[in-house]
């Protein structure tokens, strides 16, 4: 080997060593970064394993993949080709050899180098000993190694960290109470109080008590919606009354019985009362008839009339059990049909068939309930039938016994009437319960916003700053006819109730609606609201046609029953010593007239009353009057017209919200 070749070989060796170091540096840099990535992935994997998101085999596989990835990156970094003569050029740059080594290697590859090339090679060989690959390509730890070390420590710490098993904490169920407006609950309570004041049987009283407890629980926020609805459903089941058809059947039967009894002269009053569904009068008539029979024991009685009476009573008693048989027959037919259907379907059947079957089963249950209710009512009717029939049979034999039978019938009628009253109370309770449930549903659907709006409206309805109470300043009641539109106090009202209106006083009707004692304002205000043409009494008792605007609250209706000409708009004095007034002689040829209060502009119109109620609250007596009139009209319309159930509820609800409040 020539010296020239030896020089080239030396340069090549230097370049190779430099390239190896370059590869090592690259492997270290890329490998450290890959190691960081792998460690991060390992930390995530171990963390997932610790918290149970990753199974043990999966975690091991993930760690193995990380390690393989690092090895792959290292191998790739080492094997990836370097630029041509990268080692020699690195040496040239580091030692400022101006590409002598790299150029020499290039020129050495030329087949026929020029003298300049040979000179360049010799020049490179001359400077080659100065080149130091170790200095040109220093091996240093890349910065990423520190990061990788930190990550490795974190991984070790994470591996030592014991994660406790996650046990989900059991949270106590929080009751979300039903929130209803206080006004609604107060309204229900008032209603229950009114129902309670009536005569009720023990069952109804128990239902009212339970209803009261339900309302109290709702008001105290002790019930959530589910529990509240459950209790309402239970209560409604208790309050369930016979259906309308059943009631109607009973009424028809009693009416038919009454018609039969009407045919006999002796039992005609009782029969007429029964036909008119006036059980009270029927009871009284029965008792009267029994009394007559007892009196007839001492005096002879017309046999024909007795026979006629007996026939009437017997026929009236013959209609028993007809209705019950019909119901029983229908129930049996339906049960047979369901049984057949079930046998046909077996375990299968289409959804439509199963739905139809379920519907029939529900109808059967309803028929069972109706039948039970009908049996209960039937017992009462049977008892009456038996008593009437026995009375008819005994009539021919023993008048005394017949009288006892008739008294017994009267007692039966009394019980039926009580039963009807109880049913009515139950029905009212049930309706109120349905209203309450509808309120809860609506508040649940409308959310808190609706509750807030209702509460705000309730506050307005109660009046602001006690203005309603101020209007209710008690009148002293000493001056007759002091009522001036609104502004009547509770005392005035009580006085009114206590004294009663002066009824039809003094023939000419003066002071028709005035107060006997002049205490309180009385109802004169109501008359004043009528407008149009009105005949009034003039100063000399002459009739006068008055055209009025219908304003004013009817002040000046006082005067009680004082005789003498009444001047519209004037105040009466004293009181009629004969409070009731003398009985009107129907033969005196009176002519009906009406006293019209003058428009003193001291009262408020209806619109003013309503507007005042909206501004000051619903606690004025004038508003109460206006409300009563409007409410009555609305109720009548609801009763007469065919109003959908939903609208019916809203109308009732509206009047509940604007109902008058008690003045403070």
């Amino acid at each position: 080997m020539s010296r020239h070749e030896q020089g080239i070989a030396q340069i090549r060796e230097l370049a190779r060593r430099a390239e190896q170091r370059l590869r090592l540096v690259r492997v270290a840099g890329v490998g450290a970064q890959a190691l960081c990535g792998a460690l991060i992935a390992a930390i995530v994997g171990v963390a997932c394993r610790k918290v149970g998101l990753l199974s043990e085999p999966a975690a091991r596989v993930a760690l193995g993949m990380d390690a393989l990835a690092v090895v792959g990156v290292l191998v790739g970094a080492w094997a990836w080709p370097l630029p041509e003569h990268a080692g020699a050029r690195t040496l040239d740059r580091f030692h400022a050899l101006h590409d002598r080594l790299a150029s020499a290697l290039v020129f050495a590859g030329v087949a026929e180098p020029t003298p300049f090339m040979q000179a360049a090679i010799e020049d490179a060989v001359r400077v080659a000993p100065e080149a130091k690959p170790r200095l040109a390509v220093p091996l240093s730890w890349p910065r990423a190694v520190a990061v990788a070390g930190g990550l490795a420590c974190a991984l070790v710490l994470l591996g030592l960290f014991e994660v406790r098993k996650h046990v989900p904490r059991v949270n106590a169920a929080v009751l979300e109470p039903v929130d209803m407006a206080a006004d609604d609950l107060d309204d229900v309570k008032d209603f229950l109080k009114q129902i309670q004041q009536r005569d009720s049987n023990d069952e109804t009283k128990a239902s009212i008590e339970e209803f009261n407890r339900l309302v109290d629980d709702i008001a105290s926020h002790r019930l959530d919606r589910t529990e509240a609805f459950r209790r309402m459903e239970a209560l409604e089941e208790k309050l369930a009354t016979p259906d309308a058809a059943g009631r109607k059947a009973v009424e028809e039967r009693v009416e038919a019985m009454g018609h039969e009894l009407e045919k006999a002269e002796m039992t005609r009053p009782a029969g007429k009362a029964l036909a008119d569904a006036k059980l009270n009068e029927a009871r009284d008539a029965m008792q009267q008839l029994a009394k007559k029979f007892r009196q007839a024991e001492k005096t002879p009685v017309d046999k024909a009339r007795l026979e006629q009476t007996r026939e009437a009573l017997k026929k009236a008693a013959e209609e028993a059990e007809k209705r019950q048989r019909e119901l029983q027959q229908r129930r049996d037919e339906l049960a047979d049909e369901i049984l057949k259907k079930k046998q046909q379907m077996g375990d299968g059947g289409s959804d439509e068939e199963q739905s139809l079957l379920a519907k029939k089963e529900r109808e059967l249950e309803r028929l069972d309930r109706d039948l039970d209710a009908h049996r209960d009512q039937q017992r009462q009717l049977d008892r009456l039938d038996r008593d009437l029939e026995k009375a008819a049979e005994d009539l021919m034999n023993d008048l005394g016994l017949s009288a006892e039978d008739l008294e017994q019938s009267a007692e039966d009628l009394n019980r039926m009437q009580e039963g009807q009253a109880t049913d009515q109370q139950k029905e009212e309770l049930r309706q109120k319960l349905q209203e309450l449930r509808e309120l809860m549903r609506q508040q649940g659907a409308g959310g808190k916003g609706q509750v807030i709006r209702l509460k705000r409206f309730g506050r307005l309805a109660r009046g602001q700053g006690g203005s309603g109470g101020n209007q209710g300043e008690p009148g002293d009641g000493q001056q007759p006819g002091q009522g001036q539109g609104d502004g009547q106090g509770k005392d005035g009202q009580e006085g009114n109730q206590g004294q009663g209106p002066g009824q039809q006083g003094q023939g000419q009707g003066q002071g028709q609606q005035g107060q006997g004692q002049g205490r309180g304002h009385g109802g004169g205000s109501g008359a004043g609201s009528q407008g149009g043409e009105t005949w009034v009494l003039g100063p000399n008792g002459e009739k006068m046609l008055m055209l009025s605007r219908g304003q004013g609250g009817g002040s000046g209706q006082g005067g009680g029953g004082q005789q003498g000409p009444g001047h519209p708009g004037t105040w009466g004095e004293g009181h009629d010593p004969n409070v009731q007034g003398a009985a009107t002689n129907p033969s005196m040829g009176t002519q009906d007239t009406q006293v019209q209060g003058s428009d003193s502009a001291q009262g408020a119109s209806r619109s003013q009353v309503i507007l005042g109620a909206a501004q000051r609250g619903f606690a004025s007596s004038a508003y109460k009057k206006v409300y009563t009139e409007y409410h009555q009209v609305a109720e009548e319309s609801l009763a007469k017209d065919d109003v959908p159930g939903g609208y019916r509820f809203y109308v009732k609800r509206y009047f509940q919200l604007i109902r008058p409040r008690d003045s403070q």
Partner: protein
Amino acid sequence: MTDSQAVREQVALFRKQIDDLRGEIAKSIVGNREVVDGVITCMLAGGHALLEGVPGLGKTMLVRTLAETLSLTFSRIQFTPDLMPADILGTTVIDETQSGGKSFEFRKGPIFANIVLADEVNRATPKTQSALLEAMQEHRVSVGKRTHVLDEPFVVLATQNPLEMEGTYPLPEAQLDRFFFKLHVPFPGGEDLRRILDMTTGGPTEARRAVLDRDAIVQMQHLVRQVPVARHVQDYAIRVLQATHPDGPDAPDVAKRFVRYGGSPRGGQALLLAAKIRALMDERFAASVDDVRFVAHAALRHRVLLNFEGEAEGIKTDQVIDAILKALPEGKAEAPRAEAN
């Protein structure tokens, strides 16, 4: 003596001659080593140089000194707007012979010299500039039906003033490309300025002698052409040249944004030739990447054309070349700048 030894001696002689030339020039020109080397490089490469600088920086003095030290003919053309091509190239006149006859005779213009100083070349009309630039490219002059070949070496050193641009005719891009180098003549530093003042305000300056004759210069030009370039150095020069184009593969963002057109192949030739000369000046036998980086500014700054946005933003072509060299770090350190802007 082997061929390589002969080459080494030639290169050593080359180095010696260059050092002698530098020494003689330094007697009159203080500092501006890069500008002097640039002018010498242009002469050795057979190219021309465009010197740009404000008045009074010694551009004309440099050229004159160079001509004196080289024993070459020298002519100076002061370009003015009314300068005509014939004023540069020469004209045909009617000459009366001794026998009484008359004949047409071509009177050579100032272009017929080895070193031509085209002072304030941008003040002449394009027509006159074109006449000069044709001679620069072809090294010959056509007048009438006759073509006159210019003597070698032929070097045009043009100057232009970046100030007072009113009434000037900036050189078109095609003509700028004819210049091998564009050299910025910077304002001298404090030490150089003191030496200039001492030298020019005192007694008479030392006389300059000619250190190179015409044959030596031609030999040196031939030697330059023999310097080999390794493949990776040539690749680097190509990459640099391509990077000056906005759509080049290695073009930096500034080039993509502000450059309208990059360097021509003449730019690549200038890069490698200048790199070879620099290697010889450094007594090396092959050009290196560092040499390419070193001459890149002078060889490319007038060949990179900025677009409207670059002109509006006040971008200098040197900034573009800096970005290119930064994007192509194939050297140990940042190449020293030939001269400051």
